[in-house]
Each structure stands twice: as structure tokens, then as C-alpha cells.
């Protein structure tokens, strides 16, 4: 029986560019007195009670807020970043 011909076949997958992996930012020792930013996008059923609870349970935090109903967060400006110690973002990213 004749041997079947072998073919070289090409890869259909797109190119995944190599990625540098970074460590996470150092965490905070305490949240008291810190400025924590709430970046809210989507799911008001969750984010409205979350905002209320965070502000009630953690009155010593300086809370800032940007809200969108869309799927992309509204970014902090460079100036705002200088005074922001941490960010809680949800529910889309």
C-alpha cells in the first residue's frame, strides 16, 4: 500500500504578543485616613448598596467616586491619582 503524502499545515491562531508580568502594587497598612476611589460601572443593584455600606462602615476613609452605566470605567486624571491611595472597581472592567 502506497504511503500517503504528508503535508505541512499552517497555524490559524493570531499572534499573542509577549507580555511583561508585573508585581501588584504594595497593599495599604490601614485604610483609616486614606483616599479610596470607587470606580463604578454597571450593575447598580450591587454598586448602590455597596457604596452605602462602604461609606457607613468605613467613615474614616475619604471616599471618592466616578460612576458610569457603561462597561468601561471612567479613569482618574493624573492629578487625582496623586491623592488616591487605592481603587475599588466594579462590576465591569
Amino acid at each position, binding site marked *: 500500500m502506497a504511503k500517503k*503524502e504528508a503535508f505541512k499545515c499552517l*497555524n490559524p491562531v493570531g499572534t499573542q504578543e509577549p507580555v511583561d*508580568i*508585573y508585581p501588584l*502594587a504594595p497593599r495599604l497598612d490601614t485604610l483609616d485616613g486614606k483616599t479610596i476611589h470607587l470606580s463604578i460601572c454597571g450593575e447598580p443593584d450591587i454598586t448602590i448598596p455597596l457604596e452605602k455600606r462602604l461609606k457607613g462602615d468605613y467613615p474614616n476613609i475619604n471616599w471618592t467616586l466616578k460612576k458610569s*452605566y*457603561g462597561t468601561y470605567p471612567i479613569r482618574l486624571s493624573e492629578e487625582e491619582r496623586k491623592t488616591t491611595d487605592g481603587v475599588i472597581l466594579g462590576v465591569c472592567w
Partner: protein
Amino acid sequence: MPYLADLETSGIPTVLIDLAEENEKVKHDALIYGIPELRFVSASRRLPGPEDVDNIIGSIVEGLTRPLTSKEKKKGHWAPEQPRIIFEGTLDDAQDFYQQTEKIPGIFNAPFSMYTDGLPIIVPTEDKVKEMLTGTSHKPDELITVQSDIEMRSPDSVHPGVTRKRGDVVRFMPMYRTATVEQVAVNAVMAGCKPEYFPVVLAIAESGGGTGDGRGGGGAFLVSGPIYKEIGMNVSYGRLSIGNPPNKTIGRVGSLMWRNLGGYKETVSTIMTYGNPITNGGFLLAEYAEGLPPGWKGLNEEMGFKKNESIIMTVGPGEWGIGQEHMPGVYRSLQKSGHGAIARFLNVKGLPGPHNYIDFITDGIWRTMEGGFTLVLVPDMAKDMYDYGFKSKEAIYEYIWKKSFEPVKDYRMRGRPDYRTNGWMSIEKTSGKHWKELSDDYMVPAGGDDPFGSFCIIVCDGQETASERFSGGHGQAYSIDAWR
């Protein structure tokens, strides 16, 4: 995700709240943006908000304060292996290779194709791919980039429009991958395309290959210009049916680009909701410009190209249009003698046409769905509308759009505007005022923000006087000729 990566790498700790079934997607995105250890907390789609918050609030706070583990402090480099030749063997074995599946837990371990849309493919041997590349003058190793500056229209008030510059590298979603002309050719071979179709395929690739934001479903495309005739696209009877190789195979290639170039893997790299019955298997339709009434522009000219230039335009046929439907003969009776159902509806019984068919098909069309649509007319119907008084397509877009106006109090009851208006915090475009400033009786368009963006008409051949409608108006256009 790029925002979170930017914050973390610039020293600002973050916590992401996702929904539980999105965890795999979060991990994928985090890896691609270089922060694979991103901290996230999963909310629920089912629990009432306050209960949900009870469950997650501790983890959210802890995410900002718990010291980093050694793994979270690690630097590194991720470079997946990507060989050009992926398989060597007989054609039978190659077919088996490309049709491999994997079981995905997020869909009850149902099998999911690793390299195809679920159907068998033409095996992309070196010779087949080389032959496909004869369909373009572009080099095999050239990256797919934007061929001319494009102002991307905003789909709603939430997402701003952006400008894409000539030379910008096209990203295929959801994995943000790039592709070369050769990689597109591999997918075109697999879909069954012929080399002469390849410029159309490359224009589709330039548009993002039907991958959208990762949930593109393979996309949907209209073709305008002389290329339809050159490659034998069916613009006549059965144009949305089976049997025509270019319509079927070029239509299919978007699905393969989504799977392979973009890396779509359901519940892993993206969550698609449930898919789209209209684009499942491909959606490609070409315009028959020879059938346009005098003065009506072809789609290519409407989109700023010349009459002899060939283009593709992206469309979003999310749902078929609702509103009135009819048998083709009822339309003929209307225009020939003022007889039948549409004549009764328009109150023109016994009067020969031309009569305003647009009034009939748009009746009730916004009752359960806002937004625009594309209307496909055959030449006789387009000529009737011209004779009635619509001397341009734009005149019909404007007419339909104006019919869509309704009071704010009704518009507020609809399903999508909470999102589209950014929680009613954005500007209503026809008035230039904030939504919350408008009175209940103020009239706003249910048919989208502007006539041209919301509505589109193309003419296809045929004497059977029926029309087709599908969601969405004018999308973005891309030159096919740039890829010849």
C-alpha cells in the same frame, strides 16, 4: 483591564468586583495586561444587592490591605509558543487535528472546537495558503493595520467615538491579538474561500474580523462596489440562502477569525451571552447598485468612496425588524391598482400607486425595540419610493427617523435607554440638554440619535416585491480595493 494594570503598575492597589462566572475571563485579561495576580472578588447575579454586599465587603477591603504574597510580588515574562507550522501529516489526520475539541466546564463540559467554528474545514496546507496569497499584492508577513484614517462613530452615549489612524495595528478580540496577512489567509483557506475573494476577507480583517469587543460573533458585512460581480456574489434571488460560494465562505471566515485570530473561547476568554441566530454561520450580503433609482447613491458613495470602489461595511443585525410584514403579491397589488391589505392600511383603495410603503412597514416597529434598521429593497420597490417622492436614500432615513419620535415619558419605559443614556446622566442629542431637564412630553427619537447612523437602505435584485429588515443602520466602512 488596561486601566487596572496601569493603576497597579503605578503603585495604586486595586480590587476588582466581577460576577462569578466571569472569573476565567478576568484571569485571561489580567494575564494579557501583565497583572495575572490581580485581586478580584466575585459578586452574584442572583442575590439581592444588600445580601451580596454582606458576602463580599470583607474581601474587598482585605484585597486592599492583605500583604502581598511572594507570587503576587513576582516579575516575569509570558511568551506563548506560536509555531508557524502547527501540524505535519496526511490530510485525513490534519482534518482530525483541526477538528479537535476541548471540554469547557463553563458550558457543562460541552465540547468546543479548538481551531474551527465547529464545522469541518479545508486543511490549510502550505500550498493552499500560498495560493490564497496570490489574491493580494500585500506581503504575507505584513501586519493587518488600518488602511486609512477612520472616525469611528459612537454606538451610544456611553462610549465615545474614537479615531483610528492609518497604520494602527488591528487587535483581534477578546485576546487582543494581532495577525499577519498570511494568518488571515490560513483562516480564509479553512473557510473555503478562493484567492479572488481574499481582498474582501482582508477588508473584513481590517474591520476587526468580526471579533468586536470579544463578543463579535464573527460579524456581519455588506459589500458594495463592482467586486460583487468580479467574484460572483449572489445579489439576487436566494441571496440570503445557500449555494453561493462567495456569500457562504466569506461570510463564514469571520467566525474563524473570531475563534483563531481573536481567541474566542466561550466562558474562558469571553462570555458571549447566548449568541446570535442571524450571524451564526456568517452574514454577508452585497448591493446591486445597478438597480438603484436615478439619484440614489450606492452604499460605497454614501460612505465617502467612489462609485467604482469596492468596500465592506460592518452591520449589526441583532434582531430582524419587527413591524408590518406582507406577502410579495400584496405589495404589487398596492402599487398597481390600490388593492389588498396594504392599500386598506394606507387608505388608498382603488388608487394606483405610487404609495408610501414606508408608512406601512414602520407601523409599530418601535413598539418593543428602539433603534434603527437596514432595509433591503428590490429595484421595483426602490423605484416606487423614488416615484412617490423620495429622491434620495437620505430622504427616507430622515422620514423614518422623524416617525420614531415619542414623548420622554414613553421612552423612559424602554429596556435599553437606562444604559444608552448612561443612567440618564448624558445629553439628549436632539435638544442638547441633559435628559433629566426634559419634560415628560418632550419628543425624542426612539429610532436612534441620527437618521444616517440609524438607518440604511440597500437595493438587491429580484422582482419578488418583498423587503428584508435587520437591526442597525450605517456601520464603519473599509476599502476592499486597498487590499487587492
